[in-house]
């Protein structure tokens, strides 16, 4: 059995299909197709980061906090999402799917490895980067997916403006990275 899987993993066709990276453009085509299908089925495009705010709310409530009076969570739909819990939230399931999809892809390629944190610098980068992204995504009402990919495809001018200023941010981020985090 073990032999069989090692042999399969070394098979040229298997390697081509499951191991070697596909091109960026092939990825782009697939993402666009799935994005369109998502919009056709759910009548809203793909988003990732709004769900993170819900996770934050659940976490806060688990610690005894209350977000019901926050205007961000006040609308009926969000209230229902928070009341129904993690397992019934489509956004949570979709994000979990992204993690699992990447995990499955990595395992079929026999390339899974736990990558340990190497330095304190990495932790600082993760903390600052994470906080900035979270806060920024709420201000801009989305991330690279919701506010950029989905918004531009939705013919919202906001998507283009988000992209332009994202580029400004990435420029400063690159400078900071070279100076402090390398």
């Amino acid at each position, binding site marked *: 059995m073990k032999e069989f899987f090692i042999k399969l993993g070394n098979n040229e066709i298997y390697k081509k299909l499951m191991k070697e990276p596909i091109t960026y453009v092939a990825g782009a085509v697939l993402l666009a197709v799935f994005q369109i299908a998502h919009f056709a089925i759910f009548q809203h495009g793909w988003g990732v980061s709004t769900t993170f705010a819900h996770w934050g709310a659940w976490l806060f409530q688990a610690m005894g906090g209350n977000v019901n009076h926050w205007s961000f969570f006040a609308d009926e739909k969000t209230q229902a999402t928070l009341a129904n819990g993690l397992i019934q939230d489509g956004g949570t399931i979709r994000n979990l799917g992204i993690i699992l999809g990447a995990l499955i892809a990595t395992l079929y390629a026999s390339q899974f490895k736990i990558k340990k944190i*190497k330095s304190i610098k990495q932790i600082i980068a993760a903390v600052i980067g994470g906080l900035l992204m979270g806060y920024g995504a709420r201000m801009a009402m989305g991330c690279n997916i919701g506010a950029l990919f989905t918004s531009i495809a939705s013919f919202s001018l906001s998507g283009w403006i988000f992209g332009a200023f994202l580029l400004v941010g990435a420029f400063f981020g690159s400078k900071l990275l070279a100076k402090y985090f390398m």
Partner: protein
Amino acid sequence: MAEFNLDCLGEACPIPLMKCEKKIAELSVGDVLIVAIDHSCAMKNVPDWARTQGYNVEIDEVDDGEWEVIIEKTK
């Protein structure tokens, strides 16, 4: 013809690429740089970058999810 090692294990994009760029600038023509990587994206963008620079590149999968990118500075 010296051989240099660069340890980029546990590091995410674009750090491995930036370290490579910096290190290879210090090398002389004919030297070989061996970059240890365990980030699947860097395993694509480091060789891509080296090839556009016109260097010889080889990728060796040394362990599950761990690669050595071998770059020969040719010019």
